[in-house]
């Protein structure tokens, strides 16, 4: 039961929960108490003395930020002594503050400015020389430090300790000489370093990319979300004169609290890249050349129509994207189904059958153990990584990482380093141990003890390369703590995962690396289902959508992406429309397949590797340049709002698709009320979506609002399932296995086009274990050739024990062409170039 206590502040009474601080109680009454070091999301230190107040029956003044209210407490925040104290503290701070406000980026949003304005004195009595410290000292590529402005509130230090657990900043020297710094000025490396900029109450830590770009009050501020991974962190996009200049964290306790990763914070500027496409392109004489929209749309529409009419509609295919909004994806599949007449619709990274979303981005907070099944959240969804760290630091959550590459968060537990493709076997060994552990009590135990008899730790260790000791430690964490949260990636085998949940409870979820994988699926960007999930073979659904779209819909299932690509070579697919998907950098067979097409249209912001193969390229707006909704990795529906207009000559993808339909139907055909393609705004498309998709029925742009909307989902009861593990066998001549993943700063579209991220982007690097490098004479920095049965690429080697022996690791975009299938580890050979 909650205990309430009554407290009087400045004569006003309030009842608050026991344990509330005076500061929070005053906040409830709307009584302002100034603070500097206090920050609600950091452990209080009571150091700045700004919040001193009088409390009856207590000697001296008390810090409101740390003093807990007690029944009958009488507090005064407006006595002469309190007023004088605030003036005194501010005078002290200003004695050595440079007061270079006219050139300070923090100006206009500076706590020190605001508090001096509200609580400070009017004259300066300080006539001594000010202390001088380092100005404009960069701490890596993102954070600029000005030591003279620093008021030593320690928020930055505390954030890095308490949230990401990266204690890279600390106070050095002491007393008046104290400065906040990294160890001998080294660059910050925490993936979450940018948050210290938002946290800094003064201009001591500012953003290097944003430096001197605008005064804060000139910024047009748009609440939106980040679309650079699947987490969908809430942020505010700040623009001036239609230039997107800055992203800052925006509070949403269910997603990102208020933090951003550095990819999300600094990567949004890809929209300002000078490589943006600003004109449609048409291939003439083998070269892509600028064209007008009318020309390009008419050409594209006519060619697709011709090809479909000459053969049949099923030679046309549409590829949507987990990067594109629901609105664009919805229109794409509507175009394919209602205009072309085919169900050949799919996208790369579509969650497989049986895959589940996370219950929330914050799910790690509720886990006893986070099991990473071949994924590294730092690359796939950095905010999930942050929540894992937070859970480890505040709740003692453990991490069990299974896979060939060691994730950073495995420092909070154990890394079961195994050869790629053997993750299920490692999980089986854990099940073997758990099914025989006294601490585990579940009806499924007996079944599992039987099914896992072939997976004794020593046998699995031999087959996978994992150590028996690590297996035992992992099983111990799981047995002791329970409630696992299993995070898996694209190619995961879910049978042993279900068994783990059957034993220990908890949850499992697909760590979708792109912002809208679940949305594209829900929008019907799948060969066999309509928006909302009904089968294309369901006559009732077909009838209903046919009526809504005013078209006869095909009853045949379409081709899935892999089949489309395979079909290209055989002429089964002859024309393709690809929207905001860089297939060539993600999908093994794409480059080769797309080259064999008769006609390829690509809609994207950049001339991607895929767009380079196109016959027509149509430039589309980024999520921050139009409106759209996205469904994050927890299936939370959120709006990416328009912060700027698209560059001249660029249209939102949804409009491009609609315009393509218009172009096909003839320029002279007047768009009228009867047209189903007459959309003025993305919101209109969304309204149409809600009519066809039951889960979205009640949901409008207004109800999504700035906080997003999370549909209720019922937890499913997990039943244990028998399983068998197949160990990969290396073919002759390919002794190593290549695993591909995503880096924190990937060279994938669109992050690769961000000017701010350029200095930290993951290069074309191959991680090699020293043992594998040794015999091949490979050193860090050497150019190496890695080859699979499908092809070869040249990369720079980096020797590291982050990967297991026998495994090489690279970013997906560097090696997509070598893989047997996306998400599938592939046998390779390695040599010095």
């Amino acid at each position, binding site marked *: 039961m909650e205990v309430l206590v009554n407290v009087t502040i400045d004569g006003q009474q309030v009842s608050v929960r026991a344990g509330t601080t005076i500061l929070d109680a005053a906040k409830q009454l709307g009584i302002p108490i100034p603070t500097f070091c206090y920050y609600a999301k950091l452990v209080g230190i009571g150091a700045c003395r700004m919040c001193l107040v009088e409390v009856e029956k207590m000697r001296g003044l008390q810090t409101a930020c740390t003093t807990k209210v007690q029944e009958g407490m009488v507090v005064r925040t407006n006595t002469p002594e309190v007023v004088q104290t605030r003036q005194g503290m501010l005078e002290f701070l200003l004695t050595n503050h440079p007061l270079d406000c006219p050139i300070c980026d923090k100006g206009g949003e500076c706590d020190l400015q605001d508090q001096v304005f509200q609580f400070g004195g009017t004259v300066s009595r300080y006539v001594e020389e000010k202390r001088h410290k380092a100005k404009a000292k960069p701490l890596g590529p993102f954070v600029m430090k000005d030591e003279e402005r620093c008021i030593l509130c320690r928020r930055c230090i505390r954030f890095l300790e308490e949230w990401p657990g990266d*204690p890279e900043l*600390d*106070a050095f*020297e002491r007393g008046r000489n104290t400065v906040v710094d990294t160890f001998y000025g080294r660059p910050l490396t925490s993936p979450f370093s940018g948050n210290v900029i938002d946290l800094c109450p003064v201009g001591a830590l500012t953003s290097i990319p944003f430096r001197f770009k605008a005064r804060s009050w000139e910024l047009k501020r748009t609440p939106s979300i980040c679309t650079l991974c699947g987490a969908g962190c809430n942020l505010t996009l700040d623009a001036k004169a239609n230039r997107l200049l800055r992203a800052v964290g925006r509070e949403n306790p269910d997603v990102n609290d208020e933090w951003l990763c550095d990819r999300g914070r600094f990567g949004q500027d890809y929209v300002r890249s000078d490589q943006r496409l600003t004109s449609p392109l048409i291939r003439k004489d083998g070269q892509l050349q600028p064209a007008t929209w009318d020309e390009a749309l008419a050409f594209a529409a006519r060619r697709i129509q011709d090809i479909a009419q000459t053969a049949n509609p099923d030679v046309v295919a549409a590829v949507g994207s987990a990067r594109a909004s629901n609105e664009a994806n919805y229109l794409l599949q509507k175009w394919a189904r209602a205009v072309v007449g085919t169900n050949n619709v799919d996208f790369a990274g579509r969650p497989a059958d049986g895959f589940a979303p996370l219950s929330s981005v914050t799910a790690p907070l509720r886990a006893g153990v986070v099991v990473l099944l071949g994924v590294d959240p730092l690359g796939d969804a950095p905010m999930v990584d942050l929540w894992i760290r937070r859970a480890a630091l505040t709740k003692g959550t453990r991490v069990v990482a299974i896979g060939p590459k060691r994730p950073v968060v495995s420092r909070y537990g154990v890394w079961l380093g195994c050869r790629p493709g053997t993750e299920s076997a490692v999980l089986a060994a854990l099940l073997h141990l758990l099914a025989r552990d006294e601490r585990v009590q579940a009806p499924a135990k007996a079944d599992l003890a039987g099914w896992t008899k072939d997976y004794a730790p020593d046998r699995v260790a031999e087959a996978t390369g994992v150590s028996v000791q690590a297996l035992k430690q992992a099983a111990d964490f799981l047995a002791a703590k329970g409630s696992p949260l299993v995070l898996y990636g694209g190619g995961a085998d879910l049978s042993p995962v279900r068994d783990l949940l059957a034993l220990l409870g908890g949850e499992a979820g697909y760590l979708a690396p792109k912002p809208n994988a679940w949305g594209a699926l829900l929008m019907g960007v799948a060969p066999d289902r309509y928006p909302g999930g009904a089968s294309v073979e369901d006559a009732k659904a077909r009838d209903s959508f046919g009526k809504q779209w005013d078209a006869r819909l095909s009853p045949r299932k379409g081709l899935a992406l892999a089949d489309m690509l395979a079909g290209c070579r055989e002429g089964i697919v002859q024309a393709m429309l690809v929207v905001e998907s860089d297939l060539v950098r993600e999908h093994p067979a794409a480059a080769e397949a797309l080259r064999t097409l008769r006609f390829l249209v690509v809609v994207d912001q950049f001339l991607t590797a895929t767009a380079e193969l196109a016959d027509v390229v149509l430039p589309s707006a980024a999520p921050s340049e139009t409106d759209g909704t996205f469904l994050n990795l927890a299936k939370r529906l959120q709006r990416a709002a328009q912060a700027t207009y698209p560059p001249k000559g660029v249209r939102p993808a949804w409009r491009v698709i609609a315009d393509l339909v218009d172009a096909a139907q003839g320029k002279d055909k007047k768009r009228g009320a009867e047209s189903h393609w007459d959309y003025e705004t993305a919101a209109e498309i969304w309204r149409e979506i809600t009519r066809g998709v039951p889960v979205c029925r009640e949901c409008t742009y207004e109800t999504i609002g700035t906080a997003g909307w999370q549909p209720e989902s019922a937890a499913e009861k997990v039943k244990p399932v028998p399983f068998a593990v197949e160990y990969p066998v290396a073919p002759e001549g390919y002794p190593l296995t290549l695993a591909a993943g995503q880096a924190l700063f990937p060279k994938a579209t669109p992050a690769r086009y961000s000017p701010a991220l350029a200095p930290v982007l993951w290069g074309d690097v191959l991680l090699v274990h020293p043992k594998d490098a040794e015999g091949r004479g490979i050193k860090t920095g050497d150019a190496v050739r890695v080859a699979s049965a499908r092809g070869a690429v040249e990369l720079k080697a980096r020797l590291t024990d982050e990967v297991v022996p026998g495994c090489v690791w690279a970013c997906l975009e560097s090696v997509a062409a070598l893989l047997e299938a996306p998400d599938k580890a592939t046998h390779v050979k390695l040599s010095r170039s």
Partner: protein
Amino acid sequence: MLSDKAKSEIQQLKARYPHPNSALLPALALAQKEHGWLSPEVLEEVAEVMGLSPAQVGSVASFYTMFNRRPVGKYLVQVCTNVACSLLGAEHIVEHLKRKLGINVGETTPDGLFTLLEVECLGSCGTAPVMQVNDTYYENLTAEKIDQILAELRRR
């Protein structure tokens, strides 16, 4: 670099306390004893053995005046100039040392023998003025006494 012996001694120190972090000050003292000062490289090694971040260790080292973060001479001459010593002429002692050593406060003699520092109260006010050379206190100082001490140290 930090010797294996020092590393194992730090490990022992960690085990001696209810919480291993308590060994940090003794560990730094040990490292300084071995190297004369705490270079960034040594601090990093201490951090590694302690299981702390270099920033945490560097921060702690910079808080305490007895940790040298720059090389010092063979003899670290520290003269108390706080109130009791000052009342009995500590300034003259400092001046005399500056003259004799040919250096200013904060400097090291070119031969690397002496570094001269002014320090706060050494807790020897009853025998003021006082200075500490490395670990040894020299009390009731006079100019003549200092000359003898310096000569003696030079002879060693």
